[in-house]
Structure formats: structure tokens, C-alpha cells
């Protein structure tokens, strides 16, 4: 019986090691997702994994290491290019060499990382989320919400006892203008796999009493790690996009962007900046109050000054007005007198002319009348002359009277023996009736 040819484990591993030491396993570029990344004595250990796109099941896995000697440079370059630190959940493109250690097994010793791949991956994922939200018509809902005039009731979502939260609260409550703020902390995990669900839970808690809040501020605890990948989450983004009051996110730094920055009403770089913005809103409201106060004072002053000027004017006008009125009335009287005199003199001259003419006419008329009367008288006298009994007698007529002097007008008045007296022009003679033939 021959001893079977057996290798020691060391010998086996040496063979494996030799077999793996191939040029096509050296300094090769590999795309993978980083998982379970952790730092230990300056070295960065991780699992590089490849997940099934549909099921999320891990299809491939290898240990990855970045030695401290390379890590400082690689992580600095990466942070500079991507704006974030290397962390679990990131899609990375790494260059490395497969190494086999007899005691620790296979690992991938990373010598370089291409940050642009990660940027592209993160960007692609973010764009996918945004496009989906846009297709659902909710992407801009929170962004277009109107702010209350003074946002002072603030629901804060953060990790408790975190530096960023402390900064925010300190800044808010020590504002120089003594602005009143009311805050409450809704705790949530701000890194790791729990981030999205716990932030959503906090939002739900705020939503149950939505009327008590003016806005939501989501701030990260701070610290060195910049594990933002967990914020690029569809469900979280959808919740924030549709939240009924404005949401401020302050979870990144200068160059960190997450999908939340695109859907939240406002993005600030730091928790302190969020506090400063809220304070500035309050200060603007205070300034507005002050300007209203100033304008009111100005208006009241103007109005009373104007009223006083008006009074003063009326006062001075009143002191001179009576005298002026009398003077004016006097002048008017004088003018009237002059006018009257003129009118009177014109009227009397007309009248006296008319009187003169009348007197003349009267004189002529009376003379004529007298003349006419005289002539009339003359003719009447002649007529009278002609009619007088003397003239009749002279013309040969006689008057017969009885002895008592009464005139005899008819022969029948006389009878035989009646004495009659006949008057002639030059005297009378008496006779006795002898005969009547009546």
C-alpha cells in the first residue's frame, strides 16, 4: 500500500496562489457595488458584490481591500471628484489585483478607483427616480408650495444628539432678533439602510398633525462619513415631493447632491444654513413690521401737520376777512352810487326834454283852443243877434200879448172884446178884438 500522494494545505494554497498569479488577474478594472465597507487601522475593508438587477440577490462576491498606503490618496481623489466619501451601497469601478493569502483566502487588492463611473451611476439612478416622479406628476409639488409669511413652527427630522441638529437648534434659538421658533425633533436614522424607511416614518408622524407645522427640516447628524446613497431612494423622494408643507433638506455639503435636493422645496448646504434662512424670513417679517410702523408714523405726522397748516391758514384768513369784506362791500356801494348817478342824470335829461316839449305844445295848443273858442263865440253872438226878438221885430214881426202881459200864440185864444197889446220894434199899441174868424 503506497501512501497516497498528499499535499499539505500550505502546499495546496501555494499552488492556488501560483495559479492565480496571472497577468489577466493583475491590475484589472472591475465594476461592482461596495458593501460592508469599514475602516481599520487606516485600511479600508469591504465586500465587492454584484446583485441581480431584478431580485437584488447577490450573484458574486469577493473581499476587497484598500491598503492604508493607497487609501488616503484614493479616498481624497474620490471625494474631490464625486463630492462624497467612499461608502457602502456605491457602485464603483476599481482597479486591482487578485491576491491569494494562504491564511485569509482570496481578496481583491484595490490600487485605484475611477470616480467618474460612480458619479455616472449615482447620476443615472437619480435621473431614473426623477423621471419616474415626473411621469407620475409629483416631482414639483413640494417645490412649488407657497411658504407661510413667517415659518416659525418647524418639524425637524434628524438623528438625535447629532452635531448638525445641535447646530441648527443653537442657531435658531440664539438668533439676534429674538425671533420666536417652535421646534420638535422627529428622530430618524440618517445613514445606512434604515434611512429611507425611518425618514418616511417621521414624515408620517408629522403629517398626522400637519396643521401644527409650517415646514419640515431634514438635517443630517454631521460627522465625517458622507453616506448619502441611502437618500437616493424613490420612496423617500416620492414622500417628500408630495408632502403638503414645504420641506427643507440640509443633508449634504457643498458638492453632495441627492435626489431629495431636486424634489424638496428648498435645499441648503448645512443645518446652520437652514436655521439662517428661517431666521432671515422672521427678520424680514420684523423689518416689514418696522417699515409699516415708520410709514404709519409718517402718515399720522403728515396728516396732523396738514390739518394744522389748514387751521393756521383759516385762522389768519379769519382775522383779515371781515375787514376785507367790509372794504369790498364799501367799494361796491361806491361803484353802485356812481352808476346810479349816471343813470339818473341820463333819465332826467330825457324826461326834462320831454317836459319842455310838452310845455311848448301845451302853450300852442291852449292858444289855439282860446282862438277857436273866441271864433266860436263870435259866430254864436251873431247867431244870437239874429235870433233876438228885437231883431225879429225890426224885421216887421210883432208880438201880441194880453193885458196881463201873456203872449197870445193862437187866434183861438182871442175872442170879441179882448184887449190886446201889440209890441212893435219901436213901441206898443193897444187894440180891442172886433172879429175872429176861428
Amino acid at each position, binding site marked *: 500500500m503506497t501512501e497516497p500522494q498528499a499535499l499539505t494545505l500550505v502546499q495546496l494554497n501555494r499552488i492556488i496562489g501560483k495559479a492565480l498569479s496571472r497577468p489577466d488577474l493583475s491590475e484589472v478594472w472591475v465594476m461592482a457595488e461596495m458593501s460592508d465597507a469599514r475602516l481599520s487601522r487606516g485600511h479600508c475593508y469591504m465586500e465587492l458584490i454584484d446583485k441581480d438587477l431584478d431580485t437584488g440577490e447577490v450573484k458574486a462576491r469577493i473581499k476587497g481591500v484598500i491598503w492604508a498606503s493607497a487609501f488616503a490618496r484614493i479616498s481624497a481623489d474620490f471625494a474631490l471628484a464625486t463630492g462624497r466619501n467612499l461608502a457602502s451601497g456605491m457602485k464603483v469601478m476599481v482597479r486591482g489585483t487578485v491576491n491569494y493569502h494562504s491564511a485569509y483566502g482570496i481578496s481583491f487588492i484595490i490600487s485605484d478607483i475611477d470616480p467618474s463611473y460612480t458619479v455616472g451611476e449615482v447620476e443615472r439612478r437619480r435621473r431614473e427616480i426623477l423621471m419616474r416622479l415626473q411621469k407620475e406628476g409629483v416631482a414639483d409639488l413640494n417645490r412649488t408650495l407657497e411658504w407661510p*409669511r413667517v415659518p*416659525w413652527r418647524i418639524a425637524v427630522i434628524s438623528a438625535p444628539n447629532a452635531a448638525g441638529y445641535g447646530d441648527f*437648534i443653537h442657531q435658531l434659538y440664539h438668533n439676534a432678533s429674538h425671533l*420666536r421658533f417652535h421646534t420638535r425633533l422627529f428622530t430618524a436614522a440618517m445613514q445606512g439602510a434604515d434611512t429611507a424607511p425611518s425618514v418616511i416614518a417621521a414624515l408620517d408622524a408629522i403629517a398626522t398633525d400637519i396643521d401644527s407645522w409650517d415646514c419640515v427640516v431634514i438635517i443630517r447628524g454631521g460627522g465625517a462619513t458622507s453616506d448619502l446613497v441611502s437618500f437616493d431612494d424613490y420612496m423617500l423622494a416620492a414622500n417628500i415631493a408630495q408632502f403638503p408643507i414645504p420641506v427643507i433638506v440640509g443633508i449634504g455639503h457643498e458638492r453632495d447632491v441627492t435626489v431629495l435636493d431636486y424634489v424638496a422645496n428648498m435645499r441648503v448646504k448645512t443645518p446652520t444654513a437652514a436655521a439662517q434662512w428661517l431666521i432671515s424670513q422672521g427678520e424680514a417679517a420684523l423689518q416689514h*413690521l418696522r417699515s409699516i410702523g415708520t*410709514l*404709519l408714523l409718517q*402718515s399720522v405726522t403728515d396728516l*396732523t401737520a396738514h390739518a394744522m397748516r389748514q387751521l393756521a391758514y383759516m385762522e389768519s384768513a379769519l382775522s383779515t376777512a371781515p375787514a376785507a369784506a367790509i372794504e369790498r362791500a364799501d367799494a361796491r356801494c361806491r361803484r353802485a352810487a356812481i352808476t346810479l348817478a349816471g343813470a339818473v342824470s341820463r333819465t332826467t335829461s330825457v324826461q326834462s326834454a320831454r317836459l319842455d316839449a310838452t310845455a311848448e305844445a301845451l302853450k300852442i295848443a291852449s292858444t289855439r283852443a282860446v282862438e277857436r273858442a273866441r271864433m266860436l263865440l263870435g259866430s254864436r253872438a251873431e247867431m244870437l243877434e239874429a235870433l233876438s226878438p228885437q231883431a225879429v221885430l225890426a224885421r216887421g214881426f210883432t208880438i201880441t200879448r194880453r193885458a196881463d202881459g201873456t203872449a197870445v200864440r193862437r187866434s183861438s185864444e182871442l175872442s170879441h172884446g179882448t184887449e190886446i197889446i201889440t209890441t212893435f220894434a219901436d213901441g206898443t199899441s193897444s187894440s180891442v178884438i172886433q172879429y175872429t174868424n176861428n
Partner: protein
Amino acid sequence: MTTNQTAFTDIDQLSYNQAIAELEDILRNMQSDNCDIDKLTLYTRRASQLLNECKRRLTVTDRELRDILADMEK
């Protein structure tokens, strides 16, 4: 209350926005030509009350601030 006196809403009942809107109304009225001098005092007093109330709501007193900060440290 007589008819020529203006009825003001109780300031406690007003929201901050309503108070500001009333202040701006009063200001507009005073800046217009038809401001009633008889009501100037009335409006000025009202405006001053509104201003103070708005300011009071916006700001905290030192004592309140101390209470809040003490509360948070618990």
C-alpha cells in the same frame, strides 16, 4: 358702540396674516387723501396695537427664551 365708531375684531382672534393685512389697510387709508381726521387717533391706536401684537408673536422675551432652552436641555 355707536354707529360712527369702527368695529375692530379682537386682536387675539386675528391670525398673523390677518393682522398684517389690517395694518396695511390702515396704512393705505392714511396715505390716501380721504383719511378721516376724526378717526386718526382711533386708527393710530389700533395700528399700534396690531404692530405690537405682531411683534410679540414674532419674538420671544428673554425669559421665554430661557425657559425654552432649559426645556430642551432636559
